[in-house]
């Protein structure tokens, strides 16, 4: 699992690439670490799944934990670029309606601008 992070003022982008299984979730958790020491009020965090073609419950868990942390601090999260396999697992877990999900990264960036 490779995570590329981009930050521009209050917009964070996490571009994930690889399997988001138990091993991948550890890597993503580490990538999220810098967020812990930040004020996230008013921030938007985009998680770009276009490089992810597999996710397990361990992957969901780390996304949910980050979402909860953001909500507490009144930040926002947008998920984008999910393929059908990844989307299916979010559906399985009843999580598709909880998150803000866009098809493409471009749409996610557009949406972030309107916040």
């Amino acid at each position, binding site marked *: 699992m490779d995570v590329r992070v981009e930050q521009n003022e209050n917009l964070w982008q996490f571009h994930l690439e690889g399997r988001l299984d138990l091993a991948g979730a550890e890597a993503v958790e580490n990538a999220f670490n810098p967020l812990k020491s930040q004020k996230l009020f008013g921030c938007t965090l985009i998680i770009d799944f276009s490089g992810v073609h597999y996710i397990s419950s361990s992957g969901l868990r780390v996304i949910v934990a980050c979402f909860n942390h953001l909500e507490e601090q009144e930040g926002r999260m947008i998920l984008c670029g999910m393929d059908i396999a990844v989307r299916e697992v979010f559906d399985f877990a009843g999580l598709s309606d*909880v998150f803000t999900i866009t098809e493409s990264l471009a749409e996610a960036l557009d949406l972030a601008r309107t916040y």
Partner: protein
Amino acid sequence: MDIPLRHRPGVPSFVEVSLPSDPKYLAVVCTMIREFARLHGMAEELLRKIELAVDEVCSNVIVHAYEGRHDAVYRVRCTFDEPRLVIEVFDRGHSFSLEQCPKPKLEGPLKSRGTGGLGIHFIRKIMDEVEYEGHLGGENCFRMIKKVA
């Protein structure tokens, strides 16, 4: 398209793999079971589900049975007993009670749902039969069956 393997009497249709309880190797066992199931003619959508179920069981072995230790060993055996795909995962760690696993909350605000419980939920949703035999000091076995006829 490949011609799916048919079960020929007397010819065992199985594959068995032993590997360390390091999360990095989950991809190895998943890839292998997926290929085995693919050979037996299962469609992509089903392959994805079977891969997820195997991954969830093995992840639980690593995290719960072996408490996150990376240097223990577990075994996955996959048998095609037409029309049943049987997958068994054996470990020598802590056992648990499958019946007493609480169901996860899948509705309402995220905060109220609590974390965890999704793995067993996925497994039960995907597979037709799920059972677990725990043995103190011996090998535990998590067995799941998918009818693919």
